[in-house]
């Protein structure tokens, strides 16, 4: 069956990790995997630029990591479960890191979750929202 990668394009504020994105983000995600060991986390925190230069990331991927720009990392083929190794190493929780991709700061994001989470109404379709 022919895969349908386009079917996800209309979901607003969402990057689906397709096999194509996985190909694009392979080196970035492998870099993230390296942070599963304490030894590598220690080396990374001691000198981020030196550590990241040992991987074959594109300049754009590298800058996104150094800037902790998680949306940019997603755009460059990263996946949040891989990226979690970066924010775990920074001592951040999923909530703290994930909130940076939204319109809210951490406290506002937590308040939204306690109030029942983001309501889906208005968030089903880019077309409905007038987004491209």
């Amino acid at each position, binding site marked *: 069956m022919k895969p349908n990668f386009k079917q996800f394009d209309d979901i607003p504020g969402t990057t*689906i990790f397709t096999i194509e994105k996985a190909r694009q983000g392979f080196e970035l995600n492998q870099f993230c*995997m390296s942070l*599963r060991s304490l030894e590598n986390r220690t080396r990374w925190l001691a000198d981020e630029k030196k550590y990241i230069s040992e991987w074959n990331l594109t300049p754009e991927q590298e800058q996104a990591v150094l800037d902790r720009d*998680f949306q940019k990392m997603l755009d460059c083929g990263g*996946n949040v479960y891989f990226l979690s190794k970066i924010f*775990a190493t920074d001592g951040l929780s999923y909530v703290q890191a994930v*909130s940076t991709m939204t319109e809210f700061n951490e406290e506002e994001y937590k308040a939204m979750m306690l109030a029942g989470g983001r309501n*889906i109404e208005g968030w089903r379709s880019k077309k409905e929202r007038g987004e491209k």
Partner: protein
Amino acid sequence: MARITAGVTTSHIPAVGAAIDMHRTSEDYWKAMFAGYEFSKKWIADEKPDVVIIIYNDHASYFGMDIMPTFAIGIADSFNICDEGYGPRPVPVVEGHSGLATHLAASLITDDFDMTVLNLLEVDHGLTVPLSLMFGEPDKWPVKVIPIPVNVVMYPQPSGERCLSIGKAIRKAVQDYDEDLSVQVWGTGGMSHQIQGARAGLINAPWDSKFMDDLINEPETLQFKPHLEYMVEAGSEGVELIMWLIMRGALGPEVETVHRFYHVPASNTAVGHLILKPKE
């Protein structure tokens, strides 16, 4: 003969594991959620299953992108705990049941499910958080575990039809195993959640409730729900719920509901939990 005595579904949120490990379960934020598992802990202490087959996904903890199996099965005698970046969870090593696991792997492959066979595997929160929720904090887990990791992270994930049918094949394989064992099948992950992008924090409680209803009563219809609907309605990570279909397939046509629980939020996620028993 081995038999499938019950099915359990539960979310497997990492923050829930952290709350247990840091003894924060009685805090205001957490206590309502953990209260939903009090019944379950008592129930499973009475049930005393010998083996639990846990359907879960690895979260870039053991598998990188160098190897990404669609369906895999751990057949080793024991499975160590992954370091997911925060250091490994302080929980006991997970013991396998290599006799049933090798039989199950061979049966499934013979039935045309192309399993990746894992003689080495470290398990992450996807598997250990459900164990903690059901058994608390023992020195040693009171069951043997057969891990079945499923790719739900990279599209294309396996279809709902494939998930329900592998569940049915698991049921048949367990029933064909000669040792007298009480076996449970757990489907983990979900419910609605999205942990990336501007839409992060999405929760869809009505959709989750209908999903639970359909899982119990209409699995043959539910299996045709497309991935797109999970991702739109339950969030990009809500697609984990296809793993609940595997559990459901393993229980046979009709089930009785023993326990049902739903709570928002835990971290970024809606917590859903079911205990089902097959109707003989």
